[in-house]
């Protein structure tokens, strides 16, 4: 399947997997972040249950320095 992550297309062999699996694949495990899928926030408590499918658009954000 193909996902769009932070504006960039990425291809994966599997046809579906959980948000938690994706977080691990991206080396983001343990990072404080928030994820939006197709404009809807995926609560951290649901990372294991929510599954992604071809065409999903994800925003993965964190806190950075700012004024």
């Amino acid at each position, binding site marked *: 399947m193909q996902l769009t*992550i*932070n504006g960039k297309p990425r291809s994966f062999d599997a046809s579906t997997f959980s948000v938690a699996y994706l977080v691990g694949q991206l080396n983001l495990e343990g990072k404080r972040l928030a994820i*939006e899928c197709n404009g809807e*926030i995926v609560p951290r408590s649901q990372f294991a249950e929510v599954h992604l499918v071809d065409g999903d658009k994800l925003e993965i954000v964190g*806190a*950075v320095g700012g*004024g």
Partner: protein
Amino acid sequence: MSDLLKIAGHSYRSRLLVGTGKYQDFAQTRAAIDASGAEIVTVAIRRTNIGQTAGEPSLLDFLPPDQFTYLPNTAGCYSADDAVRTLRLARELLDGHKLVKLEVLGDPNTLYPNMIETIAAAKVLVKDGFDVMVYCSDDPIIAKQLEEIGCCAVMPLASLIGSGMGILNPWNLQIIIANAQIPVLVDAGVGTASDAAIAMELGCQGVLMNTAIAAAGDPVRMAGAMKKAVEAGREAFLAGRMPKKLYSASPSSPSAGLIA
């Protein structure tokens, strides 16, 4: 004597709020914030760097959320929708944290706020349960409207973001302060310590700044200067300044007992 800053039901000892951007590195960020004595620190919400190595340090490692009150902002947002979306992500990121800084910009050159979009976003966020500290123009009518919407603090600019031009319209700030039932903080435009002191002497409840510290020759030293300036300005405000007089027929030394 305790003189606490009260925002949305919480009390803070420091009336200086600081940003966390534009520093050399996270260590300098932390050192400057420690020197400033700030308890509330602003952070921006941005796309995470995908493909980073595991264990790469982040801002939160240097400013643990249990030691500071985070104030996620909407810097870079040019529409109400983007600002609301950003702060909903921030709330998820920070485990349900409600205190936020709303700013909706209108122009990339001046970073002047778009108050029509800001008001639209404020209405949605207040209804959604956020405690909204709002960056705004120094228009007293707009500031009052933001209060009526239910914002927990209004934060008019002293001058443009990052300009260091100081307080350009103290008269408008005084009108806003006189009419407000919620805290008024100066946000943006402070350039040096005297600017912060003047804001506090006018009766502001606090000052929020980033560039004035981060872009100083010695940011950590300037952070300490700002701490003192905010405290001095607050004390002067509470003490009540003497009236200004063009001439004074009241010398400080006794008129009697002069040698003949």
